[in-house]
C-alpha cells in the first residue's frame, strides 16, 4: 500500500516562502487564498538562548480525516495513496469540512470556482505523472520531502529514521505530515 506524504525537515527550512509562492503559481491559487503558508515560530527563550524556526503548513492529509467523514456529499475524499482531495463537481460549499479541519487550512473560495472549498492537493496532477509536488521540487533548502511512507527508501522514511519527528495536534484525525526538528524545541502539540 502506498502512503504518499510530504515531510518537512524544519532544520533545513530557511523560511524563504518559495514553497508558498510556487504553490500559488502551479495551482493558480487566487489572492487571499493559500494552499500552503510558512509561519514563524518564536523567537522564544531568553537572550542569548533564543530559538526560532519556520513551520510550513498546509493540509496534513490526515490518516483519519474528519473533513472527509463530515462531508455530506462525498466531495471531500481520501485516495488510496493517502492524498485528501475535494471533488469540486460534488462540493456544495457547505463549509462543514472547514469547520472540521483542526488546522484552519481549508477555505471557502468565492474567487475562482465560486462557492467551493480549496486546499492543498499535494499536486495530485503532478504526482500522478510520477513528478514531485511543486513545493517539494522547488524548495531551495531541500527541506520538503515527498514519497511513500511505506517505502523505507523514500525521503520521508529516511528523515523519520534519522531525525526526531513531530506532528501537529492530533484530535483523532492523525495528521500525516511529519516535521523533523532536532536543533530547536518543538512548540506545537504532538
Amino acid at each position, binding site marked *: 500500500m502506498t502512503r504518499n506524504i510530504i515531510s518537512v525537515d524544519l532544520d533545513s527550512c530557511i523560511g524563504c516562502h518559495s514553497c508558498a509562492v510556487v504553490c500559488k503559481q502551479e495551482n493558480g491559487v487566487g489572492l487571499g487564498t493559500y494552499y500552503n503558508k510558512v509561519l514563524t515560530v518564536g523567537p522564544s527563550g531568553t537572550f542569548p538562548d533564543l530559538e526560532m524556526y519556520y513551520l510550513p503548513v498546509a493540509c496534513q492529509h490526515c490518516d483519519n480525516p474528519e473533513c472527509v*467523514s463530515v462531508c455530506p456529499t462525498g466531495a471531500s475524499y481520501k485516495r488510496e495513496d493517502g492524498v485528501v482531495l475535494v471533488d469540486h463537481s460534488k462540493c456544495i460549499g*457547505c463549509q462543514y469540512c472547514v469547520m472540521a479541519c483542526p*488546522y484552519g487550512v481549508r477555505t471557502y473560495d468565492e474567487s475562482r470556482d465560486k462557492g*467551493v472549498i480549496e486546499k492543498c492537493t499535494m499536486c495530485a496532477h503532478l504526482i500522478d505523472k510520477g513528478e514531485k509536488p511543486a513545493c517539494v521540487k522547488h524548495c531551495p533548502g531541500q527541506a520538503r520531502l515527498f514519497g511513500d511512507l511505506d517505502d523505507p527508501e523514500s525521503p520521508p522514511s529516511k528523515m523519520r529514521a534519522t531525525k526526531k519527528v513531530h506532528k501537529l495536534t492530533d484530535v483523532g484525525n492523525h495528521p500525516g505530515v511529519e516535521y523533523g526538528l532536532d536543533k530547536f524545541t518543538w512548540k506545537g502539540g504532538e
Partner: protein
Amino acid sequence: MEVQWPLLVFSVLLGITSGSFIFLAIGELTGKFKEVRFTGALIALVCLAIGGCVSVLHMGHPERALHLLGNLGSGLSKELFAVAVMGIVAIVYLVLARKDYPGASKVFGVIGGVVGIVLSPIAGASYLIAARPAWDSIALPLMYLGAGLALGFTLMAALVLLKGKASEEGGFALKLALAGVVIMAVTTVAYVIWIAIAPYQAPSRSIERLLSGDLALMFWAGVVVVGIVVPVALTVLACVKATRGEGGSGIANPKSLSTYLFVSFACTAVGAVAIRMIMYAVGTSVEQLIYK
C-alpha cells in the same frame, strides 16, 4: 469563527418546530389542546420551511443538493433527513388536524413529537467536531433541545390561553411552558460550563471571554438576563397568576397570561440567538494556521 447566520436562524426556527410538535404530541396523548392543533402545526411547518430555505443560503452550490446522499453518515445529511421527515409528518398532521380523524391525528401527532425530540439535537450534533473543542460536547445538542422546548412550549401554551380552552387546559399548558423554560435554563448553563472545561483551552475560546471579555455584554445581557432570567420569571409569574388569579382575586385573565408567555417566547428566542452567536465566537479550531 464568524457567526453563520443562515445556520443560526435555521437552528432557532427548527427549535420552534421541534418544541411545538412535542407540545402537540403531549396534547394528543392527554387528549388536550385540540383547538390549537391546526394553528400550532401550521406555525411549526412555516418555521421549518423558512428555516430550510434560510439554511440553503449557507451553501455555495445548493443546486448540487442531490449529492447530499453521497455520505449518509455525515451530520448534515442526517439533519436534512430529519428535516424532510418532520416536514412530511407536519403536512400530514396539518391535514388531519383540519379533518376529524382522531386516531390518525393522534398517531401522527405522536410521531411528530418523537421526530421533534430528535430534530433539534440532530441539528446540534452536527457541531460535534473534535477540531472545535468548545462545540465537541453532548451539552451542545442538549442546549439546542432545551431552547427548542422553551420556544415551542411557551408559544403553544400562549396559543392555548388565547385560542383554546384556557380554563380547562391553561394550567397544564402553563406547567409545560414552565418545564420548557427550566430545561432551557439548565441546558444553557450546562453548555456554558462545557465552554469553561473544554479541552485544548485557548484565549479565543475561554470562559473569560463570556464572563468579562468581549462577549460579556452578549452573555450577561443577552443570554443570562433576557434569555434565561426574564423567560423563567415571566413563566413563573404566569403560573402564579393562573393559580391565585389577578391580584389574589382567584380569577385570571387568559389573554394577560398569554401576553406573559409571548414575551417569554420572544426573550427565549433572543437568548437562543445570543448563545448561538457566542457558540460561533468561541468555536475556534485547535490550531488556526492559515485561516482564522
